């Protein structure tokens, strides 16, 4: 591998965003290196989803810069579909396409965006379904699967596009407790393989296990951007402490 160690996959510089008068993001800067796993946490409404959606241009921002693999997301000349094709995204509510079979969910992007042949796409879909343990469900529709299974399909769907990095927006918070681990297991494995990941999540067990860094947000600002050991060990902002004590207590 001739990868430059520590080269940036995602770089955010002083990103600010407003909804009318209301400022959702204030001066957010951070950087995710290749192969790094970042967990973003913070209270509800602090702007975590908005921040992560700025990475693939699903949300526009008025100030600052976001660079993904050398491409500026906010630049009007950027071919966003092309950029997004290789930035995987997993949503809180799965967002599988309900009218398609699981296989079709996994092949549509490959066929329509990456212009792969149907056979090639199906082969890849089968391989990734097998990897998340859902080979048997290929012919079913999303409505016939449990939440945990649907989220694993959503991860497989993103992986089919050969992503250079993956964004997760609270991938387990809509799941029943007994299904959380099956999804986290897939994510842990992905992290261990060296996937670059930016995860909005309150699963601190997951963060402890695989995160390189943890970002804490409050009221649209990045309050804390620390290595995992710093974040869980040594002193940090009061807000983050309070937040942590709340979510770790239950």
């Amino acid at each position, binding site marked *: 591998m001739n990868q430059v160690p520590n080269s940036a996959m995602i770089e955010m510089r002083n990103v600010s965003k407003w909804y009318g008068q209301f400022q959702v993001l204030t001066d957010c800067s951070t950087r995710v290196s290749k192969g790094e796993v970042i967990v973003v946490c913070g209270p509800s409404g602090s702007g975590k989803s908005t921040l992560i959606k700025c990475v693939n241009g699903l949300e526009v921002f008025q100030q600052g810069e976001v660079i993904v693999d050398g491409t500026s997301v906010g630049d009007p000349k950027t071919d966003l*579909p092309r950029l997004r094709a290789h*930035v995987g995204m997993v949503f809180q509510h799965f967002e*599988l396409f309900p*009218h398609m079979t699981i296989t079709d969910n996994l092949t*549509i992007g490959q066929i329509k*965006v990456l212009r792969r042949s149907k056979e090639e796409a199906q082969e890849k879909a089968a391989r990734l379904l097998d990897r998340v343990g859902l080979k048997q469900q290929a012919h079913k*529709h*999303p409505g016939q699967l449990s939440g945990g299974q649907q989220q694993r399909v959503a991860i497989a769907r993103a992986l089919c596009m050969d992503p250079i990095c993956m964004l997760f927006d609270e991938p387990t918070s809509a799941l029943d407790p007994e299904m959380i681990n099956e999804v986290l297991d897939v994510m842990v494995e992905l992290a261990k393989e060296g996937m670059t990941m930016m995860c909005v999540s309150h699963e601190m067990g997951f963060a402890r296990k695989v995160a390189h860094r943890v970002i804490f947000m409050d009221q649209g600002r990045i309050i804390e951007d620390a290595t995992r050991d710093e974040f869980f060990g040594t002193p940090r902002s009061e807000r983050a402490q309070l937040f942590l004590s709340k979510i770790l207590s239950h």
Partner: protein
Amino acid sequence: MNYHWNWGIFLEQVKGGDETYLNWLLTGFGWTVAVSLSAWVMALALGILLGVLRTVPSRALVAAATAWVELFRNIPLLVQMFLWFFVMPELLPADWGLWVKQEMPAKEFFTATICLGLFTSSRVAEQVRAGIQALPGGQLMAGLAMGLTLPQTYRHVLLPTALRMVVPPLTSEFMNVFKNSSVAFAIGVMELTFQAKQMQEDSEQGIETFLAVTLLYFICAFSANRVMAVIERRTRIPGTAADVAAQS
């Protein structure tokens, strides 16, 4: 009441002609079906396009589509018929207008079809818009996030689910097209209502005439309803609430 019933009237010759009254009604039925189905195809195509345009992230397109819908929805259908038939040719360049008035083949039919198609398109557009807006917002994001363009996301992600959702309201629009097509008689399309009126005056058996016509309109509306029911069943998505309800 001293009404003289005569159910055999349908097989009698019309006055001064060599066809039966039944012939008249069936010809009328044929025109009714022709106008209605052509208008419906047009209304679906245009209505889906306009419904989509009312939901896209472009103020200009939304405003244009909204203006269209409001225009065709808020003028009475009969007035629209007259506008297209009598006023529109006057607004065309002189030689076109003359052609429309004097030479255009089947001009009553085409005028009625276009008018009914446009009127219905505004109603279809409203249903399609509502269907798209009822989808969870994440579906659009998921389509875009995998690299689909906005048109591709509509085509492959949003419309297939939105259109399934609006099959029931579109069923009543489809049935309405047949009923509304009777307005075409006002500009001289020899459809069912036109023929009924002619038969009633010619035969003086008004009750039989209008009972028969009622039955023919009922057949149209009922068939429309059945066709849509079949479409709904065939396109039902496995694992959805509607599917589970149908299975049990």
